[in-house]
């Protein structure tokens, strides 16, 4: 499973560790290589790519590795964007909407309860719908916004993947914490499942399911047979 490192990526080692804990082999992908190295799925980790100076994810979207990743994702490659990764996916228009400044205008780091609303994506198949996870959020620009029509469409088609169970800490529209594309292979979320893989170093091990789900999907549905 590929983990992309952009300049300013921070949670790449954590994402790789989560991949390892889930039983898969992390493959590190470098932002300036036009090469996905034959991986079966890709994680875009958290951090501050390019300092997040213009808009979060705005500059990373144009990196060479994204030039490969965008068409591959459109063709069905499973991609998980966490925090900055989610922002990059929105900037790349692989996911609708955008992430804007938190309502309180401050960076927020807190453990939140997260309800899995869609357990059909390859990244959430290991959860049951309605399951509540204890995972951390940590971001300054995590408020999801989209126009009403897009929000309605996301809800109607069941593409809200995870929702803040106790209300969004950051002003996110309709308490949305994560969404997927129409095909379900591209998932983005602001909370950090890779920081909840071991109670020793995080609030729980609830987040590991994102990574074990995709590994199970390879093993089962032959996703791994991608040419």
């Amino acid at each position, binding site marked *: 499973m590929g983990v992309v490192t952009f*300049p300013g990526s921070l949670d790449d080692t*954590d994402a790789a560790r989560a991949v390892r804990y889930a039983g898969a082999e992390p493959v590190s992908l470098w932002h300036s290589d036009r090469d996905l190295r034959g991986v079966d799925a890709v994680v875009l980790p958290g951090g*501050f790519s390019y300092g997040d*100076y213009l808009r979060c994810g705005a500059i990373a979207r144009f990196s060479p590795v994204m030039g490969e990743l965008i068409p591959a994702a459109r063709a069905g490659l499973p991609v998980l964007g966490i925090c900055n990764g989610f922002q990059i996916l929105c900037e790349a228009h692989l996911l609708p909407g955008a992430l804007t400044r938190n309502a309180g205008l*401050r*960076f927020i780091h*807190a453990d939140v309860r997260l309800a899995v609303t869609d357990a059909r994506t390859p990244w959430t198949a290991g959860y049951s719908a309605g399951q509540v996870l204890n995972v*951390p959020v940590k971001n300054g620009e995590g408020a999801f916004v989209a126009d009403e029509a897009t929000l309605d469409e996301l809800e109607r088609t069941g593409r809200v993947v995870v929702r803040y169970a106790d209300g969004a800490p950051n002003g996110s529209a309709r308490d949305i914490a994560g969404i997927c594309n129409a095909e379900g292979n591209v998932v983005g979320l602001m909370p950090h499942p890779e920081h909840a893989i071991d109670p020793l*170093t*995080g609030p729980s091990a609830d987040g590991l399911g994102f990574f074990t789900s995709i590994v199970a999907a390879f093993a089962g549905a032959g996703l791994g047979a991608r040419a």
Partner: protein
Amino acid sequence: MSGEDTIEVAGGTPETAQPFKELGLTEDEYQKIRDILGRRPTAAELALYSVMWSEHCSYKSSKVHLRNLAPTADQSQYLLAGIGANAGVVDIGQGYAVTFKIESHNHPSFVEPHQGAATGIGGIVRDILAMGARPIAVMDALRFGPADAHDTARVLPGVVSGISFYGNCLGLPNIGGELAFDASYAGNPLVNALCVGLMRHDDLKAAVATGLGNKVILFGSRTGPDGVGGASVLASATFGDDGGKSAKRPSVQVGDPFMEKLLVECCLELYAADLVEGIQDLGAAGVACATTELAAGGDGGMFVDMDAIPLRDPNLTPAEILMSESQERMMAVVKPKRVDAFLAICRKWDVEATVIGEVTGDGLLTMTWRGGTVVKIPPQTAADGPVYQRPYARPDTLDALQVAGPEGLHRPADGAALRDTLLRLLGSPGLADKRWVTQQYDSLVRGNTVLAMPEDGGLLRVAEETGLGIALATDGNGRYCTLDPYQGTQLMLAEAYRNVAMTGAVPVAVTNCLNFGSPEDPAVMWQLAEAIRGLADGCKHLGIPVTGGNVSLYNQTGATAIHPTPVIGVLGVHEDVRRRPGAGFTVDGAQVVLLGT
């Protein structure tokens, strides 16, 4: 003018008046420079000496007392590098070593809270990086005026957002710190930042320029007019007492944490490829300090071609270039054969790198600018600086303070009064929940944080396979230290020591940041001397070394000094972080035991 002020010009114009006072040098110090050089200094040399001999860089007032801390190092079997290096290095076993240090950024944080605090984090992180270590966590010890004071509303949110912005963007977990309020900090908040780094034993790097012909490379951000003169003027002079004149207020430095992140990764890759002979971070005093210290640390000399230094503003004079505090820069000494490989790694990380000079054999630090020689000095003379035996005396107000013991205080008479007192205590800013602050910090990034806020000590996993870890805590208390700086400092040492022990770790080393008022005030000097004596004696008792620290003087508003505030950081080694005890009651019916007296 300074463009042409070469050593030849200086030699021929001994009478030229020079602005040494404006640069913070005394008459005597200026004369001493002239004696060393046998002529008047050039404008560039004057700038260089003024920053190197500033209180901030030379420790000229505190040095005689700091010597008392040295013996604490001898008793440690853990120490790989001690006081004098950028930061002390401690062996933690299994081939790992840890380096840590706490540093102040008080004055810049008052002038521009967000950027001042941000660049405080940036500076201490580069210090740790320069030792050869990967920075793995930060902590921040903060002190402000009363929570409801006007300036606190400006300074506190700015400082916290600055630390949050820089530390989070850099990907360093913040694993603890302090937040305290007291009227004595209203005009002079304390922003002390700690960074800890991890390395393998043989990764240790030194700040020395050795090896004739080796190249000197400046890399990172370009040099601009940021904070020119900051070290000599800002950190050495009391501000707020100049009648509102802002002439002394230097331009502020703006932090670029993204560049720092690139610099960190770039340096670590350079270290791993064994391309670095010596390295130094650029902090206060910028190029002046880095070149002087590298040259003074080596055995030869150094030549620098100042025209090669990449500038953000082409109008800078040599003096300004030397004094600029532009952030996110490092300087390395590299073998000629390895320069290409060095530059290639910098390119990979998008870090600008330029060969600006080389190691020479003449024992001098020489710099040229547009064809003329503007600096030619024995580097040791600038690096060592003057040493002062400032007079000190126990303040005569102390007796009155000390007799006013707690016996005379009003006590709650009944249950209702007790409840009321308790609620007032719990609601006081000093004891209230710190979440408003700590929520803005990422404590989880890198995935090795075992304990952080709200625990008393932070605990980090170092080795996933064995569970080896380190614990850290910082403590300070200006009120105790006002009453008795000797005892107060020991109390703080003991508290930090206990907080580390609480995590299950064995305390092994101490760092400290000594925040005091003006050393020209004998009462303040006495507090400083007593605090250091207390720390030294306390460490001897506990059998642990002081591995480094930082002294911040002139913390005062007008004639009024802050409470003497040594902030003590203790590092511990944890054999297996999986066995950490948590704070708080965990099991129903468990026994509660009080230890100690």
